[in-house]
């Protein structure tokens, strides 16, 4: 009997034995096996191998694998660990972000020159005439401006000019603030960063401190618990 040029692949034989081939393919394999002595022997031996594997006895486990009470505690710890990791990561991220914001935010030095200008300009449109007078009193150097104050329509133009003059002079800050801060919440708000900047304190420091502490505490506790768990498991 002449051997066919190509023999059946191992996978085809294997799937044929498992009955997992489509009927047409299975018929072709069958036809080939009828002709090819070599593939027939391979198929027979493969079948015997599978039979032997299936006949391997089930071994009785050498001991009982039921878990003792420590497993319950370990499980509690193990289930808490991921949450603790997340918490410490969030706290650490918050700390870094706040720190970066503090670092990258406009530094206090340029803020002093721009803040009072905005403060004056912002307060003037909304304030009654009496306020504009108190606010501009210290800067009321030019004579002509005093006449302009009496014209009600000229208030805005005047204070804007006055503000510009103040910043141009560069002396600025403390002069308008006490009175303006007393009477106007808006002006008070604008002055605050200057105080913080003057004392050299970062704006978010309590939150930075809190998030930093949280990150430290949680990562420390996570490490300790994880370490104990690893020791117990070993």
């Amino acid at each position, binding site marked *: 009997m002449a051997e066919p040029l190509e023999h059946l*692949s*191992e*996978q085809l*034989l*294997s*799937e044929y034995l*498992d009955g*997992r081939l489509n009927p047409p393919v299975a018929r072709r394999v069958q036809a080939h096996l009828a002709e090819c002595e*070599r593939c027939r*022997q*391979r198929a*027979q*031996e*493969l079948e*015997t*191998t*599978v*039979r*032997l*594997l*299936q*006949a*391997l*006895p*089930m*071994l*009785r*486990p*050498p*001991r*009982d*694998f*039921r*878990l003792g*009470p420590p*497993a*319950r505690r*370990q*499980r*509690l710890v*193990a*289930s808490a660990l991921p949450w603790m990791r997340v918490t410490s990561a969030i706290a650490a991220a918050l700390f870094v972000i706040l720190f970066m914001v503090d670092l990258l935010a406009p530094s206090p030095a340029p803020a002093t020159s721009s803040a009072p200008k905005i403060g004056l300009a912002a307060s003037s449109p909304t304030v009654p005439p009496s306020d504009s007078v108190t606010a501009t009193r210290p800067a009321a150097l030019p004579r002509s401006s005093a006449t302009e104050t009496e014209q009600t329509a000229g208030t805005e133009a005047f204070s804007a000019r006055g503000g510009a003059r103040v910043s141009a002079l560069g002396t600025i800050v403390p002069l308008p603030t006490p009175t303006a801060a007393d009477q106007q919440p808006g002006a008070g708000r604008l002055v605050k960063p200057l105080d913080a900047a003057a004392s050299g304190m970062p704006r978010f420091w309590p939150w930075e401190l809190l998030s930093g502490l949280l990150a430290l505490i949680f990562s420390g506790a996570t490490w300790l618990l994880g370490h104990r768990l690893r020791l117990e*498991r070993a």
Partner: protein
Amino acid sequence: MTSALPVDALEQAWLEAACDGDLEAFNALVLRYQTLVYNLAYRTLSDAEDAADATQETFLSAYRGLGSFRGGSFRSWLLRIAVNVCYDQLRRRQRRPADSLEALLEQVNADTLLPDPAAGPEPVTLTAETAAAIQDGLGRLPPDMRLVVVLCDVQGASYEEAAAILRVPVGTIKSRLSRGRAQLRDFLALHGELPGGARRP
């Protein structure tokens, strides 16, 4: 065979209780599956002590990881953990010298054999020598092939179940299984364990 439904309902009840932290319920599952897991580990690792360690580790991991069990077949989920533990063991072993045939033979003789529940209509009786030779041959297969052969041929899993356990496509199972079987066949033939005697060169 009694109907499978009440048994599965019981298993479901154990599972739910175990998920709530009930250790006794989980231990009922351990009792049910420890023979299966131990045999998977033993056939994969070829060492009784390593297999016992792997079995213990499997159940500990399963108990800790019950929260990540998303329904479906508990057996497949458990075997997946067992497979991963076995892979870890094999990696840790870092090509420790393979057990000699004599040692395997000794081990097989020492272990008490359970009656084989998967025996077909024509049960093949294995001598201890043949069983040891098969175990030796299994140990020489690459781990990927070995696990598929153990799951499908020793434990009787379907291609689909093996694919789910190993998280690979069914096509991969087919090819690993056929190559593993073929290598094992050649090994057994070489050692005169296949009837038919003389082997082609």
